[in-house]
């Protein structure tokens, strides 16, 4: 069992407290409100950052031993040393040092955490083969060829803190090497609207600087326009004026944000005119067309104007697009937002109110209104919009007239015995025999660990294994049969749900999609073009031009993953609460204050 000891700290300070590291070690904690220590069940302390524990709350020592056992086997024999990202309190490091004689360089972004660890473990016992760094510049040139290991919890709570060092160590440039500035443009409403929010969250989790132009803020205005007049011509004119207004706002936002990339969702106010303007500014636009191309045909005007056109359908369509000379097409199915759709119950979960033996969550499309009538004797409950209480299905409506929030849908998926997923159709009376794309609900149910019966779709089997991860029906009869079977075979149900959940969390999250998309973009020559905006400059050129000023070039080097930076980016990369300011950092903050004054 380990305990904090000031004598240990003093001995560590004596061994490691030189140069910049000493400064980081001797000054008071500056992020105290973000972390706290607590005793684990085993008795040794553990630490949490922003409420997330960096070590096991039960037995951090054993957890560290298990981690070290696993990673030591991965270290190549030829590795000259190990670069470890993330220290936490150091259980994993201590275990590692006991298993290898290689030199280890530890990068810990937070001096507060470093000091806490220095109070716990007698690192000085490991002598010169153990070194610590709190600044990426201290790592440069010190870990060439080192084998890279990460303390996953540390990286998870602060991905941006370790990104640049990781890239430094990996030495290759990929999409994930950059922290892009991305502006996501949502539609005013509709199915793509929550996807836009999910995209922003996913990009931020990946370490990108994503912001949202939320056209949903103007939903009320658009409705109000419709209410002013019944004269169609006037409505059309007003909507046209409104569309121009939205276009102006998007442009204003672009000038403010200076994005490296714009991501547009289907139905977003990125009109052809706006896309032309954006194209003339050389800003790439990635457009996710999450619609049925046969029904929403505006893609014909949009697709040629964007850098990357991502679609959720394949065989019938992509060849057609390519025949028109479009080579910017990417098949990108929808996915689950794991921040909302996850297997763990939410706080305040209502497992009774949001569950059923057979649950259907979705809007009352034509085919569903007919199909579900055949299932009413199987414990059916229906949630969603556009269902009529006067309909024969009225008695089975659980929240008639109320729009279900995504968080509530997640509860339904988690707590219901069987989730029925019937893709919508406006002209079939049940399953669309030609249905191809897979809807977001397929992934969302799976991400929640829910068991799912889904109608046959041609693109489903490459995403989930029918019969192993999802159960698939072709018509009402097969659906009834499967419902009866799985209602009385819980073990099979649970196994399939578990398998689908694992696959979704591994392959079908919004983060997965964004990574694929960005990798695709980079592989086709995309790179952050932000340097074209006034005030933004390429980090490479800044490092190069300040080569004779090690402090300045080292400072810029921290921002490699941004590609290009402006003063605001540099300011965000300085954390006065966490470490004493260097002269360069002080200079940046002062310059930033001036920039604020002139509104730049």
């Amino acid at each position, binding site marked *: 069992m380990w305990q904090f000891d000031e004598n240990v700290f003093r001995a560590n300070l004596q061994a490691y407290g030189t140069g910049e590291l000493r400064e980081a070690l001797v000054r008071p904690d500056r992020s105290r409100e973000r972390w706290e220590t607590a005793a684990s069940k085993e008795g040794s302390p553990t630490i949490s950052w922003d409420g997330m524990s960096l070590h096991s709350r039960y037995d951090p020592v054993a957890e560290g031993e298990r981690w070290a056992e696993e990673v030591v086997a991965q270290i190549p024999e030829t590795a000259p040393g190990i670069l470890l990202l993330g220290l936490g309190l150091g259980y994993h490091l201590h275990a590692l040092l006991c298993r290898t004689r290689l030199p280890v360089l530890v990068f810990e972004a937070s001096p507060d955490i470093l000091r806490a660890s220095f109070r716990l473990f007698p690192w000085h016992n490991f002598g010169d083969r153990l070194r610590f760094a709190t600044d990426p510049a201290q790592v440069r040139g010190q870990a060439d060829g080192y084998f890279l290991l990460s303390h996953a919890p540390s990286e998870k709570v602060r991905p941006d803190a370790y990104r640049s060092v990781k890239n430094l160590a990996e030495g290759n440039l990929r999409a994930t090497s950059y922290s892009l500035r991305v502006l996501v443009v949502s539609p005013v409403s509709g199915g793509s609207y929550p996807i836009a929010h999910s995209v922003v969250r996913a990009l931020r989790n990946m370490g990108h600087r994503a912001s949202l132009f939320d056209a949903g803020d103007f939903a009320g205005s658009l409705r109000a326009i419709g209410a002013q007049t019944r004269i169609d011509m006037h409505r059309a004119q007003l909507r046209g004026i409104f569309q121009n207004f939205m276009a102006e706002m998007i442009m204003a936002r672009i000038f403010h944000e200076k994005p490296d990339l714009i991501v547009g969702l289907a139905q977003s106010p990125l009109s052809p005119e706006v896309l032309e303007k954006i194209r003339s500014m050389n800003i790439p636009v990635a457009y996710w067309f999450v619609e049925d191309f046969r029904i929403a045909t505006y893609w014909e005007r949009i697709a040629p104007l964007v850098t990357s056109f991502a679609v959720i359908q394949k065989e019938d369509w992509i060849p057609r697009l390519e025949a028109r000379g479009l080579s910017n097409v990417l098949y990108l199915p929808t996915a689950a937002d794991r921040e909302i759709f996850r297997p763990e119950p939410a706080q305040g979960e209502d497992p009774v109110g949001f569950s059923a033996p057979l649950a259907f969550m979705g809007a009352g499309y034509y085919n569903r209104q007919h199909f579900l009538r055949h299932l009413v004797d199987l414990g059916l409950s229906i949630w969603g919009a556009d269902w009529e209480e006067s309909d024969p299905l009225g008695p089975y409506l659980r929240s008639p007239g109320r729009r279900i929030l995504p968080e509530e849908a997640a509860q339904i998926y988690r707590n219901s015995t069987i989730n029925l997923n019937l893709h919508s159709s406006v002209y079939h009376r049940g399953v669309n025999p030609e249905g191809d794309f897979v809807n977001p609900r397929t992934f969302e149910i799976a991400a929640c660990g829910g068991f799912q019966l889904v109608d046959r779709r041609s693109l489903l089997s490459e995403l989930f294994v029918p019969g192993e991860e999802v159960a698939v029906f072709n018509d009402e009869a097969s659906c009834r049969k499967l419902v009866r079977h799985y209602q009385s075979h819980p073990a099979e149900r649970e196994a399939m749900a578990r398998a689908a959940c694992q696959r979704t969390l591994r392959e079908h999250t919004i983060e997965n999609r964004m990574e694929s998309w960005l990798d695709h973009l980079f592989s086709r020559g995309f790179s952050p073009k932000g340097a074209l905006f006034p*005030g933004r400059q390429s980090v490479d050129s800044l490092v190069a031009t300040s080569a004779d000023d090690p402090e300045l070039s080292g400072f810029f080097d921290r921002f490699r993953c941004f590609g290009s930076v402006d003063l605001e980016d540099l300011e965000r990369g300085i954390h006065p609460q966490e470490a004493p300011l260097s*002269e360069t950092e002080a*200079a940046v903050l002062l310059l930033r204050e*001036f920039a604020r*004054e002139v509104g*730049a």
Partner: protein
Amino acid sequence: MADKVLVIQEARLGDLLQSGPLLEKIHGQGGCPTLLLRPGVVEAARSLGMNSGIISWPGFGDPSAALSLSCRIAGSRDFVRKMRSENFSRVIVLNHHGTGIALANMLGVPVSGFDHLFDRESGSPAPLGGWPAYLVASSRGIRALNRIHLSDMWQGFEGPGRIPSRPAGGGGDSLGPVVVVLGGRSPYRRLSPEALHRLLLAIERIDGHHVILSGGPEDGELGEALAGRSGPKVTNTAGRTTVQELVALISQASVVLSPDTATLHLAASLGVPSVGLFFASALPYETGAYREGALSVVTRQDCYPCSGEGASCPSLSCRNDPDAETLAHIVAGLRRGEPARSLAARLSESLTACQLLVARETPSGLLQEALTPTLPTKEGILAVLMRRFVVRYLDPTAPLPTFSEEISLSGMNVASDSKGKARFGKGQSGGVDPLWFVRLERGVDLYLGLRERCLQKVERERMVERLASDFPMLWPLLHHLEWVEGGLSAQPGEGDGENLPRLLRAGASLSWEAQSAGRLFGAGVLGEVPEKEDSHVAVR
């Protein structure tokens, strides 16, 4: 070793001149001040011969221009290094500006004045304390009630006490020209061209002395036109003088007549007799010429001072008072050395639409003595009460005149008869509701009780909201102490062992004086107890 003090002043020339008393105070205490100024003011500061070292902020380049970030950062870093190498013992930040505050906090020495920003767009307010808190509070929402001069607030940044009072005049040349300043930065704070023309004609007729028109480059054309219409005794120098030349001009003037401009403050610093014209939102209490004997003229209109800059005012009629004739008489009298009281008495008939004030340097700060009587109003009395409270709270050692002396100085000529009831001066109707002061007293007492109890945050906020709602006259006090100071010493053991007792003492005096004001207007000893008060008794 001399106390090397960096004074960061980032505002314009007028504010720089109003920093003069602070610099004198630092000198008086054995300190050696150095001013850090914006580039546009440095030359002027050197020309003014200000009694301090001068350092200029570097240009830092236009942020929107395509200059290399590395060059700009390197330049900024060199500047920070240079400032650190100056080895200042402390820094005083006079302005609520991010730049000065950022630099001050980088020097590693004690910072007084503003050491952090009260608010940023993106964050929630961070409480301020001391005189900086009052400066922010007075500039946001309680400006009309402010009776404390900016120079006094800045002197407060340096600690208790003021510079010794200086004699009136002593500068200028009584035979020199009258300098008329055409206007400052705001178009709403200047006389109209027609009014200026009438004024020049009146001065020529009544005083007959040479007039020199002064102003910035934007006033050049106007000055030429006015000089052309006014005859040989009027000369235009607007837009043609360097700061050095302006200093020479003013130092030889007999009288300076000016709106609230840097030239008015220059006159004050040189001891030249001056008449300040305050329109729209400009207040002589706040930015009047800081010199014993300096005159100021303000309108009596209800809408003065403006809540804004005057941009939305359709008439700008505050600029019409006093008329040109009266102003010319004032100028002439001042030039002849006529005592201000005598001048006011002689011109009383024509000063009915405006107030004539004379500055008095006192140990508690610059006061504006009203030379023309004014109707007592609850706002006017509240302003006096607030000034006295703030001085007691922030500078308890400063000797204050008595309450009745200060009321009298303000021109609210309220005397009491043998029964303690108010008698008003001739022509005054005494429309003040005495109960208003009773409620003020009650509200103050309740608030002090709340502060003494050191309630938990949520309960405290709830009670403060109730107080603000039930005792709206408390708003200026609450604005300062709660919303800007954040209710310092709200929790036991938090922050300021000295603040709370000082606040309670100042508050007790405020309560007593509010009671006195109520008695003055006939409220009696007990007064009335509003029924809502019962619900507040719990906080006692």
